[in-house]
């Protein structure tokens, strides 16, 4: 069963994975640039990371090379660490200003 998974992945042409992941990535980028809520921005960043994960898995299956899938684990672990720190920062800010709107924070100007 396990050996068949790469073959199942390969039934869809590589270009499709490429376009799909790029589309997800671009949606994430647009979300980061247009949203105002820190948590939604953060979710868009996670979407970007996951589109990369998807592409890595597809590429790795196409090349029959495990390196790509190992990288996926690294990305997941690092993303988890980033979530810890990021949510802690957002909670800290929420305690101080009772909001997670990034545009309310504009104390740093010249």
């Amino acid at each position, binding site marked *: 069963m396990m050996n068949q998974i790469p073959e199942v992945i390969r039934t869809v042409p590589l270009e499709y994975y490429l376009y799909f992941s790029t589309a997800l990535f671009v949606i994430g980028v647009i979300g980061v640039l247009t949203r105002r809520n820190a948590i939604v921005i953060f979710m868009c960043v996670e979407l970007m990371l996951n589109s990369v994960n998807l592409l890595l898995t597809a590429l790795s299956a196409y090349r029959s090379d495990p390196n790509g899938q190992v990288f996926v684990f690294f990305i997941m672990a690092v993303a988890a660490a980033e979530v810890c720190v990021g949510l802690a920062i957002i909670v800290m800010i929420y305690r101080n*200003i009772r909001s997670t709107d990034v545009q309310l924070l504009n104390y740093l100007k010249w």
Partner: protein
Amino acid sequence: MTSIILLSVFGIINLFVGFLKSNRILLPLALLFLAVVFGANLFNWNDTQSYFNNMLTIDNYAVAFTGIMVLSTLLLIPFSQRYIDTKDENLAEYYSLLLFSLVGAVMMVSYENLIMLFVGIEILSISMYVLAGSDKKSLRSNEAALKYFLMGSFFTGVLLFGMVMIYGATGSFNITEIGAAQVSADGVTNTMFVLGLLVTIIGISFKISAAPFHFWTPDVYQGTPTLFTSYMSTIVKTAGVAAFYKLMASAFAASYTTWFPTLIAITVLTLVVGNIGAVVQKNVKRMLAYSSISHAGYLLMSLIAFNERSDSSIFFYSLAYSTATIAAFGVLKLVADQRKDETFEAFNGLGRTNPLLAFAMTVSMMSLAGIPLTAGFFAKFFVFASVLEDANLMWLVVIAVLLAAVGIYYYFKVVIAMYMRPAENQEKVGVNSFTSFTLIFITILTILLGIVPALVSDIL
């Protein structure tokens, strides 16, 4: 590898020492640990070794840059004295995070595989997100942490996307194999490769705060507690530029013509934005932030030169820049803590009240501006000399020299405030003897490297 292991272990030990009631032991302990790491690191000189299936290689390049970064941290933490005096309860965590983030920095200069580059960047960045927000009650620090975190993780995603595209085109994460891979000149593979290359450059440019990806730098640097700002502008930048050069030299040497125009545009823009931006600042910390952007531009110039002198010129520039920046931020921290003011006016009359601080600040400003007899002069000289090996790049050096002249203006605003402006009932800034000793040491190092640069300029 010894330095990575030692830094991790020492970081954990430091964390546990934090359970003790006394904060006084933490600073000597952290200094001792860093000194041990600095010494242990030197033992790897001329002894190239690979670890983890060739994912990390400790060669002379890695040892040299690890040396700079550990030395910078060593010179920087004596300025944390005030946290000890005010009995900050999280002091042990700050030192541990500095040690842990150094692990990431060491990985960034010794990676042989893009996975290790990514993990290194993240270890460094995640620690810095925490340290940027370490002043929990201050809204400025909160804002800096949030901006740094959101922008940092966004550009981490961008960097990853680039790495994956490169993997898709070449089928490997190993930078030597990427360099050797044959990419066909047209078709999807080539598009992926070029896209991956450019997006990776964007991702790393953010980390070293090169324009147009510098927009976070002034805000984050200003909001972050000064001690950690100086860490960001020295260690993070050194590691970023060293990683950038290593990536370009090993993986993308063959595609030089593809990335060269992009990098030239980034460099010129960085030099202009950094130097012009610094001129209009009223806040010294913000001015130093823009100055660090401009120095990223000078560092990128030796990347553009891309010849056998690039690595030693990056090494010398990083060393000169780090020492001068640490002294500048250190004096700024002492003055701003005492006078509750970070503008140029805070420095008024410092030459009369604190001759030592004023002198150290003057030397560091001269070094950052590139005045002869300081390390900064030879740093700029080596960079320009390596760029000039390609005579077509004369125009770039001319622009850089003109902008360095602009730099003299804003650096000397601090010096003028210290010596020419009268002190209006300004008090003497209290400095303990250990911090003074550190400042004297940095000043001597800066002047020494400005007189005999040959001490370290040819070691790579």
